[in-house]
């Protein structure tokens, strides 16, 4: 086994370089310098802007880890266009005003060639203008989201509502029932996703019994649970987020929703969120994402990247789809493919190549950009929670279209 406590000279030096980089660039900035110098040309600079601190730090740190892993891998294979890659990481701190300042540092001080990051939609909206319009830089957004982001030079590599609903909702109707409830947190993602979900539910012969929005910090759902039980709802298509979602599922469980054959569904549920409730309280919960860890059993490439990630970052920050880690991997690899095709690094050429970039292998399978749409086709999987783990119960036959822009 790999012994973590043994501090090799190489590891010490790399940690030392990392620490001195942090000191040199100030609080909230990290630089991982290019591993070799090139006399002819300077390194290509990759910028990551993500939430390393704040309530969703677990996701941001996972994304930063994935970026470190991918950049290390590309550098080990000889870099891009013969040039090494240098990674610049800035903290967006789950706070839009802090984020804009830090993203400006990436653009103006570090002059990065591309920025990947942002997890929430509000963060994307805050930083896209400093990156794309004023910063004249390429921006890749890696998280699953509500769609409708059609800004030029902004590429999305996470699942859209169409990808998360088109195959999932018919499955729910078949394996749950026709009567849906849409309890939701009161912000943009649930509102927009529900419009799409309702359309798919009704097109497949289902019915939405109620759709209701709650304050983001609401943690008592007795009235909601009562309405779900008394309306004899079959499927709870949940978009309530933490901290509310834990108490909500618990109250549903205690009210006998699962015992009566009810089905929970939640499209952001991944390995990170399994620990919010006890296994019995979310038994049978269905989710639809581009990757689940259980895929490592059947897909050698998934097994390879999952193992590589866990080897480098054996902590609490998981390589999971709901925290944009898979979107980050996909985004960086698609960008790599685009740079290779373009043969240069200016924004116009890379964007033109990224517009139709493809990768043969990625988390959950291959992926390709839909030309002209700046969104990504990918395989989608439906998984069900059983005893605290996921089991894949359905999968798309091919790559699913994002149907955006």
């Amino acid at each position: 086994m790999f012994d973590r406590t043994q501090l090799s000279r190489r590891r010490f030096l790399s940690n030392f370089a990392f620490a001195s980089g942090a000191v040199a660039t100030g609080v909230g900035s990290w630089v991982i310098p290019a591993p070799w110098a090139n006399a002819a040309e300077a390194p290509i600079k990759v910028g990551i802007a993500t939430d390393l601190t704040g309530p969703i730090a677990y996701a941001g740190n996972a994304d930063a880890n994935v970026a470190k892993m991918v950049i290390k891998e590309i550098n080990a294979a000889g870099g891009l266009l013969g040039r090494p890659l240098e990674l610049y990481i800035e903290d967006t701190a789950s706070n839009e005003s802090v984020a804009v300042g830090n993203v400006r540092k990436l653009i103006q001080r570090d002059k990065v060639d591309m920025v990947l990051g942002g997890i929430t939609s509000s963060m994307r909206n805050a930083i896209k203008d400093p990156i794309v319009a004023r910063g004249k830089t390429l921006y890749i957004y890696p998280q699953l989201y509500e769609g409708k982001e059609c800004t030029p030079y902004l590429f999305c590599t996470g699942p859209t509502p169409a990808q998360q609903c088109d195959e999932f909702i018919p499955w729910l109707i078949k394996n749950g029932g026709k009567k849906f409830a849409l309890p939701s947190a009161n912000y943009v993602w649930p509102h927009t996703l529900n419009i799409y979900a309702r359309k798919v539910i009704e097109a497949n012969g289902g019915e939405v019994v109620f759709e209701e929005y709650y304050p983001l910090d609401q943690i008592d759902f007795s009235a909601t649970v009562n309405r779900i039980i008394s309306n004899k709802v079959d499927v709870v298509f949940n978009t309530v987020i933490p901290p509310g979602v834990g108490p909500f599922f618990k109250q549903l469980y205690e009210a006998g929703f699962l015992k009566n054959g009810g089905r929970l569904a939640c499209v952001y549920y991944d390995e990170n969120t399994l620990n919010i409730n006890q296994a019995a309280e979310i038994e049978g919960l269905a989710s639809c994402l581009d990757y689940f860890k259980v895929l490592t059993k059947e897909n050698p490439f998934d097994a390879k990247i999952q193992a590589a990630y866990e080897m480098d970052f054996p902590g609490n920050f998981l390589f999971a789809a709901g925290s944009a880690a898979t979107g980050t991997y996909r985004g960086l690899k698609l960008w790599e493919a685009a740079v290779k095709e373009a043969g240069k690094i200016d924004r116009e050429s890379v964007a033109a190549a990224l517009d139709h970039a493809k990768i043969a292998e990625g988390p959950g399978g291959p992926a390709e950009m839909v030309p002209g749409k700046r969104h990504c086709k990918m395989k989608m999987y439906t998984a069900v929670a059983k005893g605290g783990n996921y089991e894949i119960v359905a999968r798309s036959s091919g790559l699913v279209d994002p149907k955006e822009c």
Partner: protein
Amino acid sequence: MANAFVAAFEILSFGAIIVLIVLGLGIIASMMGIFNFAQGEFVLLGAYITYLAYAKGLPIWAGMAAAPFVVGALGFVLEALIIRRFYAAPIVAMLGTYALGLIIRESVRGLIGGFYLTVPEPIGGSIDIGAMHISAWRFTIIVITLLVMGGCYLLLSRTSFGLRVRATLENPSLARASGISTPLIYGATFAFGAALAGLAGALIVPVFSLFADLGLRFLIQGFVAVMVGGVGSFIGPVAGAGVIGTLSAALPWVMAPVVADVLVFVLAIVFIKFRPQGLIAGKGV
């Protein structure tokens, strides 16, 4: 009928949770004149200690029993080191306790990695009455809240310790002249308030799961409850907590939850405008 019963139970149980959280806050505010902004983080610490016991494989009861003592002891130390210096300046005290709370909250966030973690309840499942299911643990919380409330009332109104606390509140110089060590009483009162918060945290963590903002979530509600109930007595904040807790659980049954959330505060502000002394005015128990 069955529906009404379930509704009444759920509303009562949330009211009980708010009362439990406000007890410690109310005692510190009423008996010491300090608005302790770190109270929510004492709740969080109680929850965290319970989680630690669970994570280490100890029985959850053990964690819940230890939580009030550990948090109480911490409260005693913090009072002696920090809070004591602020008695003359209540506004500065608010800022000081806010800073303390921030330190505790962010430390716990670091320790749990920013995740949301489940802690199972010692008494799980539901009590089935016909077709109705009520949560066994929420029922336990109601019972414990009633016991703790009664215990606190007896402690403050019937024991010599309670008498000393009230004497220190009403006339500190006379209390000192009568041989009561007021610094010790302040320390003990603060520790007691902190211990109650620790207990509240330990009991509610199975319901809401553990996360760094757990205490913060209840802090504003808690202060509104204290204002509505009236500062100065033990009963005041408890009554306020009952009202606020019941209202915030009951309103979502009859209107859109987003509106209900705001309406609770609007009602509270209107009430305080017309009755600034709160529900129960005056000092004492």
